[in-house]
């Protein structure tokens, strides 16, 4: 068979026209709802109620963004979400790295049991703890305060497991032993050996955590009510409740709430893609 050589996938096959056509189709499908959010946000309510729907930008974008910023509380919400997602990211990355390092490289009693506990709770749904969390928040008087969203989400079992898997390979045990022989304290060991080795995985975990914290919905809408200190998602839920009837303003709110992450995707898309793919192989 003459075609055998060509078919052999020794090297990666080049994509044909159909491949590109299908990929472009999926790209359009992925991006269209986002582009259309911006188009709808640049129109007004009357135009959105006409047929056919608008396919190009109108002149109302900044007016709608302004209304969403003030009336729908999106300004406060953006700042709040930045604080919440930022704190959760720092906490998760820091504590996951420390615990992940201990599980990967140090020996201590109960290590196996504790690790099993971490893995076992990785898949427990958040619904299972939401009632007691709500009671705790009410008891502590944290309702409508940002710590009610930050503290319960500050650590992540997935993060610990992820860092452990990474450090098992990325951090040579001899390096730790050498540092110990030099009499390095644990603090110095972590600062000068563990953190530098863990940095790539910390970046990946940080990005994934930030996206997740930014988009978290279920617990924030229970802990934070619309009037107090909303996060972006809580404010958007308020828009969904019909707080502002103007559809173009609702779209402007959705656009504002998504824009920061979209900008991050344009800047760090490659790293985020790499992180998700890397996490998939490790996990």
């Amino acid at each position, binding site marked *: 068979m003459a075609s055998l050589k060509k078919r052999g996938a020794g090297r990666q096959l080049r994509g044909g026209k159909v491949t590109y056509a299908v990929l472009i189709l*999926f790209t359009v499908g992925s991006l269209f709802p986002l582009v259309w959010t911006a188009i709808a946000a640049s129109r007004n309510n009357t135009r959105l109620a006409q047929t056919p729907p608008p396919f190009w930008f109108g002149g109302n974008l900044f007016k709608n963004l302004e209304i969403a910023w003030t009336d729908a509380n999106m300004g406060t919400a953006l700042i709040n979400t930045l604080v919440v997602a930022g704190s959760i990211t720092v906490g998760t990355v820091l504590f996951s790295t420390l615990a992940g390092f201990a599980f990967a490289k140090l020996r201590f009693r109960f290590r196996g049991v504790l690790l099993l506990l971490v893995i076992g709770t990785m898949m427990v749904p958040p619904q299972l703890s939401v009632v007691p969390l709500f*009671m705790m928040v009410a008891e502590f008087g944290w309702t409508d305060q940002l710590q009610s969203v930050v503290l319960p*989400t500050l650590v992540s079992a997935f993060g610990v497991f992820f860092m452990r898997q990474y450090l098992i390979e990325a951090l040579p045990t001899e390096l730790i032993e050498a540092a110990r022989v030099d*009499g390095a304290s644990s603090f110095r060991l972590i600062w000068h050996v563990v953190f530098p080795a863990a940095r790539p995985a910390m970046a990946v975990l940080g990005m994934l955590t930030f996206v997740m914290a930014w988009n978290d919905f279920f617990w924030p809408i229970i802990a934070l009510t619309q009037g107090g200190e909303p996060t972006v998602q809580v404010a958007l839920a308020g828009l969904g409740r019909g707080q502002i009837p103007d559809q173009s303003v609702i779209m402007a709110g959705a656009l504002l709430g998504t824009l920061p992450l979209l900008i991050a995707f344009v800047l760090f898309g490659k790293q985020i893609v790499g992180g998700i793919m890397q996490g998939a192989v490790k996990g």
Partner: protein
Amino acid sequence: MTDIPSDTRAAAPSTGEEGAAPRARPATPLADPAAERRRARRSRRYRRDVKWSPYALVAPFFLFFLAFGLFPLLYTGWASLHRVELGTPTDMEWVGLRNFSRLLEDDFFWNALRNTFTIGVISTVPQLLMALGLAHLLHYRLRGSMFFRVAILTPYATSVAAATLVFVLMFSRTDHGMINWGLGLVGVDAVDWQNGDWTAQFAVSAIVIWRWTGYNALIYLAAMQAIPKDLYESAALDGASRWQQFRHVTVPSLRPTILFTCVVSTIGATQLFGEPLLFSQGASPTGGSDHQFQTLGLYLYEQGWFNQHLGRASAIAWTMFLILVLIGLLNWAISRWIRRDA
């Protein structure tokens, strides 16, 4: 343990696990006692450091985990055996298993269970199949492959709330909704997406599919890249066509990954909440006028935070958990069965 040369004793332990510290025996008979004490103190501190630092390192995680993870988890079980009102959550009245028995008698529970299942199937199956195909295409040598990867992942950056608000508008009832307008172009009458049983479930699933297909495709792609090339080479030598290679090399090698994505998607589908909440008019927790797309997550929210029965909400939470455990066991059994078959 070998004897350590005296000049390194002060700071250097051997490689023993418990951090064997320098010997207390004086290095030289003439050692100054103050320095000796200092050295002993340092070595004690060092030994303590090595012994206790692992616990200190895992402590922050476990403190938060115990307070906000494990304790609430167990307390939900306790609360599910009580009557707890939203307004006075500290007044708990023991009711035994009554919350559970009422749940089983409630038609809305079974309705929510059914909806969660059907929406789960409609959203997960096409999503994973498309992701698999998409990963296969992305695995070719492509121009601008990174652009495609980032582009299909952008829906993942869009929050449930933002995505749902947009889809509500696109699925709007009259023919000015984007989807109905498109259907009108090919001669299909406008569909009342929100108020039909299947149409609403389909629309909710569309949001899930839109958000997660690209993400899963990247996970499959990562696994495909890890498949050894010579597997394909030998398959090609045996005369396998591209499709046969995909079926007999790619898919079997991806089996663990496929199973993993199935588990994650199933867990996600069981918890489905934001999409159906915001898809319904005025973000009501009923999941449509006729509860036609109320999921278990919504049902829990409705019972707890609208009907104000936190005890019943806890019972729903535990039921959801039991369902997940059942699915997990089923999954495990299936994967064992497939492995034995293969």
